[in-house]
């Protein structure tokens, strides 16, 4: 084999197909600047140009190894044609890629105060509500007050409340029912707001 650097593109391609890996390196080094400049002029972004350059030569390798290269003395333009197809494909895909913005919709499921952090004002109002509820609770008869406290402040089940207070579950449920009715009546009577 004559000096590998002096071989024509076609001879290098044929030798590469026959298994001479070094010939590909010579081909790449001979044409890399031209191909890379071509891609860079089209995409104008260095990182994208590098990706397209790599994909181009991967296609070149695949086509060469499958015997798909027909020599016409213009190896570099054949490679640029592959790069051209990849660049056009890239921009075609970009065109079809829909960008979704929340601003496009009138209603945004996630844009709710429920998911927002509480403001100082919310915290003040909430503590005021708790204070009002505690005052109302104190106005209830002792047996109803006891059930509400055990259920809502201590988290006991009605079965546990029944055992704790020595009554049946139905009695405990009844006391809770009357406690809520009484508290609702007091809220209306005193015109208290219990919502944020």
């Amino acid at each position: 084999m004559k000096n590998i650097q002096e071989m024509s593109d076609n001879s290098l391609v044929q030798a590469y197909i026959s298994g001479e890996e070094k010939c590909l390196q010579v081909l790449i080094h001979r044409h890399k600047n031209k191909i890379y400049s071509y891609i860079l002029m089209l995409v104008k972004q260095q990182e994208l140009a590098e990706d397209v350059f790599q994909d181009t030569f991967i296609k070149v390798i695949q086509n060469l190894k499958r015997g798909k290269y027909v020599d016409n003395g213009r190896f570099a333009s054949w490679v640029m044609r592959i790069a051209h197809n990849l660049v056009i494909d890239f921009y075609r895909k970009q065109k079809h890629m829909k960008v979704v913005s929340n601003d496009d919709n009138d209603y945004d499921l996630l844009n709710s105060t429920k998911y927002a952090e509480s403001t100082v004002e919310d915290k003040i109002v909430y503590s005021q509500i708790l204070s009002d509820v505690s005052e109302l609770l104190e106005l209830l008869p002792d047996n109803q007050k006891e059930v509400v406290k055990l259920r809502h402040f201590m988290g006991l089940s009605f079965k546990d409340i029944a055992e704790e207070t020595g009554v049946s579950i139905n009695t405990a449920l009844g006391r809770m029912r009357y406690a809520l009715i009484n508290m609702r009546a007091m809220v209306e009577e005193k015109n208290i707001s219990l919502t944020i």
Partner: protein
Amino acid sequence: MNSNATEDLAKLEEYSLALIDFFDSLPTSFFDDENLSPPKRIVDHIVRYSKSQVSPFQNNAKLYRFSVN
């Protein structure tokens, strides 16, 4: 908006093909500039990829043909 993108793509395609002819007419020495060179790591990736690929012309597997071998 979509038709604008299609028009732009058609223009890019036209420009890109014209650029191939233009670059083809320039001598390779025209591009002898470090700034026009892709990073070495990219070239190394390509060379490594090539070494991992076996050409169907290179493997020594025996070709079997239906009702011939």
